[in-house]
């Protein structure tokens, strides 16, 4: 039991060490990943800004003007619905993008996996980082919106870097696991895609938890992604710690997911040469 535990810890340490050692390569590949995605397209990297921007405008339009959601102005809900929507939507889009892109992060780089002595744990982490680059763009949109509307942002926004790191660790863990499993099970990419399409309705992004019928509320609480969303809403919308448990849960989840993910990755990587 204890030896198995120390082995899984050493997998996580090994992954971390490798990532730190190859940070230059990781950064270079992250830049490439973002560039490659839109390579050969007329607007190029402009798409990495345009894509999330368009989605944000779409959601804001539908829920503000079509469904006419109006909240805010109370002590309970200090800011408007758009702020609420965006503070949850922005991290969710990054998480969802990390998950779906990491599925093909190893599959798509067969040459690096098979033909070189290459630190392949860099591969899933680079797409996670690349996905969060677009998140910075969406975050900027949210901040600009709040500045225009309220001439201020909640002071708790200072905690954003901390939360981002926790989220990155969490996504890196998921990314490693998904990348490794997808090498064997190509269907995972589609499973993740289907899940993330539905997933946006399973996290409290469009609605307030209070609107959920009581019988379904526990689902919201056990959904690990909800806790990340709540943390973001705390610092970007409420401006206070409304969900202290979520902060604890998120941090623990991130650590757990990273250990689990790097464990899965390091255990499965030995077989990559056989399946790719």
């Amino acid at each position: 039991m204890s030896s198995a535990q120390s082995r899984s810890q050493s997998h996580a340490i090994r992954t971390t060490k490798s990532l730190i050692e190859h940070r230059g390569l990781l950064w270079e590949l992250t830049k490439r990943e973002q560039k490659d995605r839109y390579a050969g397209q007329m607007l190029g990297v402009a798409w990495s800004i345009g894509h999330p921007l368009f989605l944000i405008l779409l959601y804001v339009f539908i829920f503000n003007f079509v469904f006419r959601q109006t909240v805010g102005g109370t002590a309970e809900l200090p800011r408007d619905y758009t702020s609420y929507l965006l503070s949850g939507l922005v991290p969710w889009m990054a998480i969802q993008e990390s998950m779906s892109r990491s599925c093909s992060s190893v599959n798509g780089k067969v040459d690096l996996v098979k033909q070189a002595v290459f630190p392949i744990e860099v591969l899933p982490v680079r797409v996670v980082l690349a996905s969060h680059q677009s998140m910075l763009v969406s975050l900027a949109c949210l901040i600009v919106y709040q500045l225009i509307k309220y001439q201020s942002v909640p002071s708790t926004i200072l905690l954003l870097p901390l939360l981002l790191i926790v989220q990155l660790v969490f996504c890196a863990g998921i990314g490693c696991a998904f990348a490794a499993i997808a090498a064997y099970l190509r269907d995972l990419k589609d499973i993740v895609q289907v899940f993330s399409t539905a997933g946006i309705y399973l996290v409290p992004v469009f609605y307030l938890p209070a609107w959920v019928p009581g019988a379904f509320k526990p689902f919201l609480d056990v959904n690990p992604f909800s806790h990340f969303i709540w943390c973001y809403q705390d610092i970007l919308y409420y401006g206070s710690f409304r969900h202290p448990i979520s902060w604890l849960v998120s941090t623990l989840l991130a650590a757990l997911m990273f250990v689990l993910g790097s464990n899965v990755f390091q255990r499965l990587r030995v077989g990559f040469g056989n399946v790719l």
Partner: protein
Amino acid sequence: MTTGHSQEPVIRVRGLGKSYRVFDHPREILAEVLLGRKNGREFKALRDISFDVHRGEVIGLVGPNGAGKSTLLKIIAGTLDATEGEVQLTGSVSAILELGTGFQPDYSGRENVVLGAMCLGLTRTEALEKLDEIIDFSELRGVIDQPFRTYSSGMKARLTFSTAISVSPEIFIVDEALAAGDAYFVNKCLIRMKEICTSGATVFFVSHSTDLVKRLCTRAMLIENGEMVLDGPVLEVCTAYEMKVLDHSSSVLQAVVPGSKDLNLSSATARIETVELLNKEGRAQNAYFQHEMVKVKIGLHLSDLVVNPALWLKITRSDGVNATSWLSHEPEFHDLGSLPSGPVSIDLVMPDLELGDGEYLLTVAIFPEKSSADSAFYLDPLALWEQCLRFTVRRRGRPLNTIYDQQVKIVGVSTGVEND
């Protein structure tokens, strides 16, 4: 090498085995890796391989296709897992298992060199420092800012190889990659490889070309059917491998040229029934090393008494070049005597086969004895069998495309310096 043996080995392989399981679906592999459930059929690619490699050794791995050479290299490089046994490495490893690792078609040659070098383990600063050296080595400065996809395959090979050998690893693993590029560039790569070898790095090198292995390596290993057959000094192992290849090609080579029966012309008097090439033990063989003894056995059927016919052999290289010919009457006159009607067998010997590398076709003919009044040419054969046999010749040294080796001896050396 002498000092190396007293030290700890840099590569230590013990009881290494690799078996592939043949699966019907990838999910079965997942089940096996995660749950340890055995399913699928087993195929053994490597069996019980053990050896030590010391610092500074340059090892050539030879063996036929599918023997497991690349599998072994991949396991040592760490891109493939071993089923059993263990591999221990001391020092940094760089491997060129296939050219073009990390190269992307849409980026310029320059960008690809930087990322390629980083993929091989350099930091960005190191890669940028080496950039000029790499571009100069590839001699592609003129096109270095063009997208990689616009390069010819030879140029791609040059750039990727230049990148790969710019890193100075302690253990360098190269698989076949030298085969790319033109003769000039291959030579350049060889010189660079030699430099890497002499710099004290340990090099592990796979090639089909025993010639390259002989030129680069100090020690060679022969692998066949996943087993280590020989491990020793480079010349010994390479010669053993060449013999095996020759034996093999001798057994698979179709000796009789397809359609050659149609080229067997006979007259009312004589017909060539059989032509055979035999080695010095008298065993039929169709592949020979240069300077071996080759016997030719010709079976004739005569319907009449034939007095001292002229026997003619002609050897043509498969590309059409007339390599050599021999006539029993000229320039030296050999009297075959009176041959009675019925079967006749004639044995010839080529005591020292001088032909160079290549595949050859043998033509055999017999002509009637020529009276001095006749024309100077042998025109009407009694029997002629064109291209009756095909055989291969290999030089023992490196391959050359010369027809034969002219013997040359050094008889004196004098220098221009006078002793005052």
